[in-house]
């Protein structure tokens, strides 16, 4: 079991009832010990948090976070932290932010 905070920035909150920050308690296979990864978190978000299934494509593309969305683990690019394999720890903050293009 792990307690984390998830943030949706850069307008992504639009598909999460306009709520930017969500506190989650996650478990894998109903076990308290099995580590929960960022990949599991993404599955959880898609299955449980995106209300309108038409919006899944705003977040997910080819089974992973859509191009143009940056994923950050405790304010660090997930590429530096093992991406989907990263094992969540209590208090972690996972942020997803859409890339902005306006100027």
């Amino acid at each position, binding site marked *: 079991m792990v307690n984390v905070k998830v943030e949706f*920035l*850069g*307008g992504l909150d639009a598909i999460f009832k306009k709520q930017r920050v969500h506190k989650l308690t996650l478990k894998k296979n109903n076990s308290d010990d099995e580590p929960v990864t960022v990949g599991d978190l993404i599955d959880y978000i898609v299955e449980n948090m995106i209300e*309108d299934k*038409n919006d899944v*494509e*705003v977040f997910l*593309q080819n089974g992973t976070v*859509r*191009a*143009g969305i*940056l994923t*950050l683990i405790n*304010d*660090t*690019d997930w*590429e*530096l932290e093992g991406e989907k394999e990263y094992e969540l720890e209590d208090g972690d903050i996972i*942020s997803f*932010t*859409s*890339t*902005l*293009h*306006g*100027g």
Partner: protein
Amino acid sequence: MVEVSAEVLAELELLKKENAKLRSQLDSQKSDKLPMSLQEFQRYGRQMIVEETSGIEGQLKLKNSKVLVIGAGGLGCPALLYLAGAGIGTIGIVDNDTVDNSNLHRQVLHDSSKVGMLKCESARQRINLLNPHVNVKTYPVRLDYSNAFTIFENYDYVLDCTDTPITRYLVSDVAVNLGMTVISASGLGSEGQLSILNFKNEGPCYRCFYPTPPPPNSVSSCQEGGVIGPCIGLVGTMMAVETLKVIYDIYTLENFKPFLMMYSGFPNQTLRTFKMRGRQNNCECCGLDPKITRAAIESGLVNYFEFCGSRNYNLCTDEERISSEIYKTEFIDCNEKDHILIDVRPRHHFNISHFNHAINIPVKELKGMKGSLDILKESVPNVSQDSKVIVLCRYGNDSQIATRLLKDEFKINDVKDVKGGFFKYIDEEDHSYPKY
């Protein structure tokens, strides 16, 4: 009174002249030794005495720098003003757009008297007034693969203040090929992002961060998504700060860590700095085996339009669309009562201005009804599959999506999209409605 001989007077006159000559020689020697005019010393004094700028040494770095700013819009306006104020020697401005009334809430370097003028020209005039020591060059062209290198080559640093993924990839690619550092930012709504790309030709580039472009329908512009003036303005101001730091050598190869700053204006103002990946070995542009070379770009081999894609808006056939003129003459003017007008813009758009007889169902909600006529009837009680339905949005794009839904999923037979949307109707048929 003592008589002074004419001889003495002549001597005195000569001495005076000699003295004046020596004085002026001394003065010019003094200012010859100075690296800037006394005027400039005075002008930049308050920033030179900030120790981190390294005083005169830092000021001369600014004076000798050539900075290219791409886009004189929401980001470019404040960035240009502060860079000019700080005393950058040469500033280039690339923008082929003209000042529009709807720009002025955020593009505050321009003003109401400049509406219709090229933005780069308006910016040049304003900068000349602010600081005559800055040499401004304007490029009223749309940046593309064929002109980018010749423009960039005259500069040391680039500010990416553009507004589409296509130009963002192009700016980064050209800068990498020329070894230039890019100060890059973007914004939308009340948020903004900023980073430094290809720092001293060793940092990550735009493609390192975003190897795959976003799907075209996920990209919003300021025109569509809206933007808060001071929010984008703050991010543009931050770009000027970063540019000064790069030129002052506050960032060095030793201390520079790739980052992306994220500013949010609402609900509470926050500024976060994310630690980002470094240069990627497999990057197509700055990696070990680059494919996006100068030759590939300039020959048009790198197809930016194909790479970034574009939204397909031609969802309806000509028979499924009517012009705003037809809507006026055959519906509004004839007082045609039995058609249903569905306006599919977001509610806060609709509330700004709309036809009185329109029913507002945002396209997203229409999609959510999944073709159920019963659910649609909750908003449009008298609708049936035989109804005559007209669909309208802001520019005629979403209304095509809605027309498809109403025909294909709700099975309503007679649905027509108004080409060009509400705004085209306002432009061509009735100026009395507010445009925004």
